[in-house]
């Protein structure tokens, strides 16, 4: 069984199904594989945080929020690069996320190129 290469898999965490499939389709068009999760809890129990090369997450979700997820990952010393995309992007939230180590913080609707650039940078490809 081949171990999924850490460098090439992107994890997507968003409660909105349309956004999940849109992101997955977008990444596929540039040859990047991805796995989607409907909730932060699902992602944590999957163990993917130790295998995926990058995480794209929404902030406002029922249950655990994106920022809470970030805090949990930091607590576990998990170094996965996080890119936040959110419908509610206020400056305070942006600062908080970036200070806690996020790679990028984008507001919906986002510029696909910018998102892809961030993903490429995170995966170092």
């Amino acid at each position: 069984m081949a171990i999924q290469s850490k460098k090439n898999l992107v994890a997507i965490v968003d409660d909105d199904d349309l956004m999940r499939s849109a992101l997955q389709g977008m990444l596929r068009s540039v040859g990047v594989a991805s796995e989607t999760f409907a909730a932060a809890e699902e992602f944590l129990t999957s163990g993917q945080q130790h295998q995926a090369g990058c995480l794209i997450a929404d902030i406002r979700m029922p249950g655990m929020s994106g920022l809470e997820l970030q805090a949990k990952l930091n607590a576990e010393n998990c170094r996965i690069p996080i890119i936040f995309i959110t419908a509610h992007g206020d400056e305070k939230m942006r600062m908080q996320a970036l200070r806690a180590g996020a790679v990028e913080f984008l507001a919906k609707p986002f510029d696909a190129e910018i998102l892809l650039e961030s993903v490429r940078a995170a995966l170092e490809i």
Partner: protein
Amino acid sequence: MGTQNKSKRSPLAASAAIRYGLALVSVGAAAGLAQLFLDFHLPLAFTAFALSAIAATFWYGGTKPGILAVVLAALVRSYLFDPGISGIARVLYDLVFLVFALLMAMLTRARDSLEVRVKERTAELTRANDELRLEIADRVRAEEALRESQAELARITRVTTMGELTASLAHEVNQPIAAAITDANTCLRWLTRDQPDLEEAREAAARVVRDAARASDIIKRIRSLFKKELAQRELVDVNEMVRGMIELLRSEATRHTIAMRAELTEDLPPITGDRVQLQQVLMNLMMNSIEAMKDVQGTRELTVKSQPGQDRELLISIRDTGVGLPPQADQIFNSFFTTKHDGTGMGLRISRSIVESHGGRLWAADNPPRGASFSFTLPRKTDPHE
């Protein structure tokens, strides 16, 4: 008859010279006059004049000058008018003067103490008056504060409702739109490769359709929030609702010196409707009118009128003397159209939706010479669509 005197009624204020001088002058005048009357065989003339002199001196000159007057009068009488009378008679005459002097002394003392009391009472009243004035000022300030907080409440209610509505609308619709943009971009990316992948492009395009359909569903759902089932509606007395709204907004209107008038036709039949929504419409229209009149010169009058309309409808109109309709008058009911720099642009749009969901119409017109009027109808039977 009596003595002449011209000094003021303030024994302490006048100088001593005047006061004692008064004794001399008045007794002298009494003697002079008596002398005149003697020719008419009126021996008691001096006594009468002397008593007047004594009275005047006590009253206007004070106690001590009064005593001087008594002494002088007695002397004058003794030596000028009745030099030959017996000792007993003289004593009796003197006694008359003395008794009278005593009476006068008591009278003037009573007057003086009365004056003191009057002064004290006046001071008390002035103090009470000042305190009252302070209280009134405090009361006015408290009223002003109350009015301000009422206005704030009305404003916040309005903004919160509109704000919440707008925010939730924006957020909900944003999601599928962001997804649609991503999917459309993906589709383009598949098509602009050296080797376009049509299957992938088709899938991406299909996703765009699905995303847009989701956005449309959301809008439909929000719109349906304005339509309620018949069962949730109640009987609404429109006049009572208007009066309530006038009261709620009275402080806001007063703040901008706007007069509010109600021309309500009595005994209008109640209509079936959603009270909260209709209040929202009233508040929206009335607040708009208030805003329009805030900065105008001249009359500032907001009139709400209710009357029966055609066909068992009720017709409610809100007229103002404000800046009037904007040049793009036909666009004011569009979403996001606003003439305010902090306006959401949803007010009239939502108001029209509410009225239409009740089966009525909402329209605007000019209110010459200056101002606008907004009118809406509410049919007695709800929503003919149901």
